């Protein structure tokens, strides 16, 4: 296809080269790459901060930094990783690139709004980082009142404003996806023929649209109380500090599903492709995404079992939390069953899929300790919680993101990376991750509270192990940066469909032309028809 022809094929990357053509693009694929650059920068920043935190925790005393700096560091790490990396990661990069392609559309429904989302996100996030770097903020990413609204002496209002602004990009992206998925599916692409990646993004978009306004309002209320002294959360002004926690977790618990659902969507694509099998129980995997999105809005109170919330409220929230665990379990069982009697290829993306299954399973099951009232009373606010949510967010969400990035990289760039290096990095990440966070479960059970820069000496051994693991984890993230960048210049041409995958995105050249398909595809079969003969051409 690309041999000695005088003029190379035009695609979305080589159609124009000017900076202006990137900054004013309305092509969802180019916007996806803009997002990729932005979120990678924030991920790197968040990672460096994590490294500093782990370094300080090597010893029980304060050596590297003192209390004030440490508190600012973990706040910045949390805000950067959650709001500026994890929440946008898969939807804004992979979702942006793939949602139109997977449904056979030329672009998203609102291409200009899509570009606006990226500007809002990048400016909001950049603004926040400037606020955090210049003055710093020490409230933790949770902004609990009345500390944040009255007592903290740091840049709370500016930081909150930045997070507030960034939220709009999330709402706009969600809106764009929902409309696109409803209105722009190719002929024949019925709801139950959609790839599960699309179902996952649909569910995620609903949460973004319904949940994000609540956090925006909450952050605004904190700023109002702090700036103008309007009493909402501070009891000295007639407010209720626990009200903040209700509002905050009403968004922030569903936000966990904003991070993990897209990753689950990636999982379904990877497991099907590298097992060459239709996803076992397609309807149940699709339905469980919707169940998670809906039930996820009803469990926020499990963050508040020791907050002075009523005992009876605690019992209801505990029960609902056990219900939301079931659809996640259903997904894991279905992915595993998909491999049964498959044709399993251990390529790099599939290793990330294995990593996801392993780490997400542990993350999910340790969530039960926190949904259970009596055990939560003991481990709430300790390193057990820290370990649990890193298993979900790093072990789950980031493993899925890495797997997806490796899976669609050839489509996005037209190049292949070294599969051998890819597999080495995936294994290093898995080992490093477990060494970092398994000891933290034990630390939490032993009673070490989170957000401590100094700690009793008997906790040192486990902290040293964790820091050692973080070093390996850091290396595991560095290697892909190198070979992926290398592949851009030296990688083999990927061909249209290097993995032999089904899905409309693989039926168009890599990299795809600006409007994705030369003619609108017509869909005549279900997703993941790996046994049918219509799937064939591979590069």
């Amino acid at each position, binding site marked *: 296809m690309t041999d000695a022809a005088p003029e190379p094929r035009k695609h979305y990357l080589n159609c124009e080269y000017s900076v202006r053509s990137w900054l004013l693009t309305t092509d969802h694929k180019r916007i996806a790459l803009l997002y990729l650059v932005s979120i990678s920068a924030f991920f790197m920043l968040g990672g460096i901060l994590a490294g500093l935190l782990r370094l300080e925790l090597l010893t029980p005393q304060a050596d590297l930094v003192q209390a004030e700096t440490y508190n600012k560091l973990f706040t910045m790490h949390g805000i950067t990783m959650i709001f500026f990396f994890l929440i946008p990661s898969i939807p804004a990069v992979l979702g942006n690139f793939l949602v139109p392609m997977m449904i056979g559309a030329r672009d998203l429904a609102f291409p200009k709004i899509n570009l606006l989302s990226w500007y809002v996100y990048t400016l909001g996030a950049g603004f926040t980082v400037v606020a955090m770097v210049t003055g710093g903020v020490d409230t933790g990413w949770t902004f609990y009142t009345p500390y944040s609204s009255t007592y903290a002496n740091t840049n709370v209002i500016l930081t909150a404003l930045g997070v507030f602004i960034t939220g709009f990009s999330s709402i706009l992206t969600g809106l764009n996806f929902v409309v696109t998925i409803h209105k722009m599916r190719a002929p024949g692409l019925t709801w139950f023929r959609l790839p599960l990646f699309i179902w996952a993004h649909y569910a995620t978009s609903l949460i973004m649209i319904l949940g994000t306004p609540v956090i925006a309002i909450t952050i605004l209320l904190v700023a109002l109380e702090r700036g103008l002294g309007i009493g909402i959360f501070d009891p000295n002004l007639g407010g209720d500090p626990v009200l903040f926690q209700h509002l905050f977790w009403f968004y922030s618990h569903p936000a966990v599903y904003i991070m993990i659902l897209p990753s689950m969507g990636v999982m379904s694509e990877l497991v099907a492709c590298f097992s060459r099998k239709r996803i076992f129980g397609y309807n149940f995997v699709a339905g469980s995404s919707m169940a998670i999105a809906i039930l996820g809005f009803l469990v926020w109170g499990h963050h508040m079992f020791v907050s002075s919330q009523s005992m009876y409220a605690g019992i209801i929230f505990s029960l609902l939390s056990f219900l939301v665990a079931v659809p996640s379990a259903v997904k894991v069982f*279905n992915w595993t069953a998909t491999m049964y009697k498959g044709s399993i290829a251990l390529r790099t993306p599939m290793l990330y899929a294995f990593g996801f299954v392993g780490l997400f399973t542990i993350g999910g099951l340790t969530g039960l300790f926190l949904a259970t009232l*009596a055990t939560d009373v003991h481990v709430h606010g300790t390193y057990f919680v820290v370990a649990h949510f890193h298993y979900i967010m790093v072990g789950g969400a980031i493993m899925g993101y890495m797997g997806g990035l490796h899976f669609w990289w050839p489509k996005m760039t037209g190049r292949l990376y070294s599969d051998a290096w890819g597999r080495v990095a995936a294994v290093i990440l898995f080992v490093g991750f477990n060494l970092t966070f398994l000891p933290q479960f034990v630390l939490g059970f032993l*009673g070490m509270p989170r957000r401590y820069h100094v700690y009793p000496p008997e906790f040192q051994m486990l902290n040293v192990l964790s820091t050692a693991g973080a070093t390996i984890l850091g290396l595991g993230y560095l290697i892909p940066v190198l070979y992926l960048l290398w592949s851009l210049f030296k990688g083999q041409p990927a061909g249209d469909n290097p993995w032999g995958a089904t899905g409309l995105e693989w039926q168009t050249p890599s990299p795809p032309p600006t409007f994705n398909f030369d003619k609108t595809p017509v869909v005549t079969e279900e997703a993941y028809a*790996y046994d049918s003969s219509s799937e064939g051409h591979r590069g």
Partner: protein
Amino acid sequence: MWPQVPQALRLIPEQASTVAGQVDALFLFLVAVTVFFSGLIFLLVLVFAIKYRRRSEAERPKAIHGSLLLEAFWTVVPLGIGLVIFVWGAYLYFVISRPPAAAMEVYVVGKQWMWKLQHPTGQREINELHIPLHRPVKLTMTSEDVIHSFYVPAFRVKADVVPGKYTSVWFEATKAGEYHLFCSEYCGTSHAVMGGRIVAMEPAEYERWLAGGVGEESLPAAGEKLFGRLGCNTCHRSDGSGRGPSLVGKFGRTEKLTSGETIAVDESYLRESILNPQAKIVAGYPPIMPTFKGLVTEDQLVQILAYLKSLKTDGQAKP
């Protein structure tokens, strides 16, 4: 400042309260569930990855669309196990949340960045609490500034300490020793050092410790003085002839309000009535009480509360 624990790498924290063993039993059951299901999934993935590895690029395995029976099975089984854990956890939560009636009461005020504790007999402690073994101890807690959380890992209990209201936590120590006290809700710069120790002592030794304290006034006695000094007793006369209701024997009862609602007279209601008297007026009395906000500290509020709670109707307490 931290007590020495000989074992540098222990896996289970010290069990030093009546609930610790019960919480650990549930915790270990959860560990077993986690290990079993993670192990099952790991094993299946491993076996499938080896057994069904791709042997030729031409392989086209047959599609399996799913199985309703299996879906039902792996929906119902996790749900069933989940519900068992839920009930077990909720039952224990009831035990942990409801202090026994006979508990010894200690008052706790948290502030950035220290714990102030007062025994009913008047002894005050900072970042340290001495308690007798084998006797339930109930802490009634509030904060002067931000939210803190009172956490004793060896007892497996914790509760947030929230400004503007009272929360409580209780425990019964079963083993003499010194245990960590941590603040487990982030509260600002020195959050990590807002801790101390709980010293659990044999009852006799505890009595000696109490006696060794400088002759401090008991909480109710201090509260009674305040009650007079602030002029509370001019309206709240014990014989009910004042402009406000008599407060004798009121604690723990329910009262009818002017709004028609009823309210339980507990620490939070008394606190509110002192700081914001117009909020909930007892039926039959005029809304004339001024606020004492800014006139009493959290420590003094605790003393007044202790006094009001000591006013029994059987005529034992002083009017």
